[in-house]
Structures are given as C-alpha cells and as structure tokens.
C-alpha cells in the first residue's frame, strides 16, 4: 500500500495519507461533522461510518452542507 493516495474531494484532486478515515479527512479539512453529508463513491455514509471507512486511491468524496437558498 503506497503511503500517499490520490483522492477527489468535492471535485478537487488531493494527495492524502493512505489508510486515513473519512472522519480524519474531515478533521484535517477543519470541517465539523455536524450538519454535513458525505458521499463516498456515490454512497451516502451514515455519520457513524465516518470513523470506520478508510480512503483508498481513486476514491471520490463529496462533502455537502446547507447554504442559503430559496427556490432555484
């Protein structure tokens, strides 16, 4: 297993530590887990799974939250 992996976070390529979990990714990005949704390779993760799921090379992570909006 290489020490670094390349993943896509919100569409941006990022080099990351191999074996890091989703929870660690959020922490390193300074994103509080409260009121965010995380999609890993199109699968929406339960908040409880953040600490369990580790990232692999080529993973696509989407981190979403609420912003101001009425109708589009």
């Amino acid at each position, binding site marked *: 297993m290489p020490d670094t992996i390349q993943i896509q976070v919100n569409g941006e390529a990022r080099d990351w530590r191999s074996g890091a979990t989703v929870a660690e990714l959020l922490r390193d990005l300074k994103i509080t887990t409260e009121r965010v949704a995380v999609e890993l390779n199109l699968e929406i993760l339960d908040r409880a799974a953040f600490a369990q799921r580790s990232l692999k090379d080529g993973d696509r992570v989407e981190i979403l939250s609420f912003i101001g909006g009425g*109708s589009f």
Partner: protein
Amino acid sequence: MADDRLVIAGREFKSRLWVGTGKYKNFVETQKAIEMSGADVVTVAVRRVNITDRSKDNLLDYIDPKKYTILPNTAGCYTVEDAVRYSRLARAAGVSDLIKLEVLGDEKTLFPDTAGLIEAAKILIKEGFIVLPYTNDDPIVAKKLVDIGCPAVMPLAAPIGSGLGIRNPYNLKILMESVTVPVIVDAGVGTASDAALAMEYGADAVLMNTAIAGAQDPLAMAEAMKYAVWAGRLAYKAGRIPRKLYATASSPIEGML
C-alpha cells in the same frame, strides 16, 4: 391568530409565511430579515462545502435549527436522479425527513417538470421522506401528488424570482378546492399585496425569497410580508363581501330631510 396554526404531517407551524435564505448580502442580513418576517420555516439549499477556504461562516450558525424548521430543497435539480440524490444528502446532513422537492423543467422558466416531480416524490415517500413538492398551478397534478402521499403541495404563483404575482388566480383557487392538504403558494410573489391575495384566496401559507431579499430594503419588506400574510389570512377567515356591479348605500335613508 395564536390558535390558527398550520399543521403538516403532524408538525405544527406558527407562521404562515415561510422564507428562503438565498440572495441576501450576508448572513447577518439573512438573520435579521427572517426575524422581521416572523417566519418559523426557512428553506436552505444543499451544496458542496468550500474545502479550500474554511474561514467562511456557516448559514446555520446564524439560523438556529432549534428555533426554526430548516426545510432543505433540491434547488437546481433537473432530473429525478439528482433530486433524489440531493434529498438523501439533505437528510444525511441531518435536520429531518422534510424535503422541499423541486424537479425543474428548464433554465429559462424554472417551471417544474411535473412528471419528474411525481416520480421523484414516489421514490422519496417510500424512503420515509416528508415531501413538500414545488409544483405548477395545475389542480390535476396537485391531486396526483396528494394521492401518492405528499402532505402538502406548493404551487407557484409565477416563475421563481419573477415577482409577477399570482398569474393564474382561478387555477390556484381550483387547486385549493381540489386538495384536502395544505397549499403553500411558492415562488413568484413580488410585493405584499401578492402575498395577501394568495392568503385571501385560501392559501394555507406563502413561501418567498427574492421578494424580500431583492427588495431595496429587505428588512422592511420582510415586515411588510409578515403583515400581508396575516391580513390575507384574517380576511380569508372573515369572509369577504360579494362583488356587485352597482352601489349599495352604507347610510340609512330614514331620517333624511
């Protein structure tokens, strides 16, 4: 008005004015405008978190989810797949099972794709969502949405952000008579009289964003909308006089010289 509560899917709402949180200058203005409007339901969109600049504030730091019902929408979704995906993400982000479902037809009108809307609503209702669908002023579509389990319908007054007011009051009236669930007029309101009119027609609530956020003075308009919705609701409950072509004197003839 205190006992005149709106109930949707067992949830009670104090305010019959619901507001969006987009297009404001900043979060402070958003917060103040919502306060002035008296709304207790606010809509939000679901978008990617900015991962490069974490210095930006979060909307929900300004709008307390304990004080307001946060109603996420699927704004910007043009397909059933996208609308379902965003709904699931909204639920995962964790406020509730409520979703304001939008499946848009095209960019120019932002009219709802009602066939897609019904399809997406069916999927989400099966997954336990409380679906509040943004729909056209079409009574037949509204009935279908209710039949599949939507606890309220949200027909447009006019295109989103257009400020044209109620374009088709007769359709809207038929729609309100056709369904037994609450009707929330959503989108197209331009000014206070539009909101009052919607309520006078018998709408259960009005949802707006641009009419307040885009006004010269958003805070003053927020307050105007609060009173407009109140006035419209009271007038609806009071029951207006019938329209007549000719005059009827208000003063008695007796006692005249």
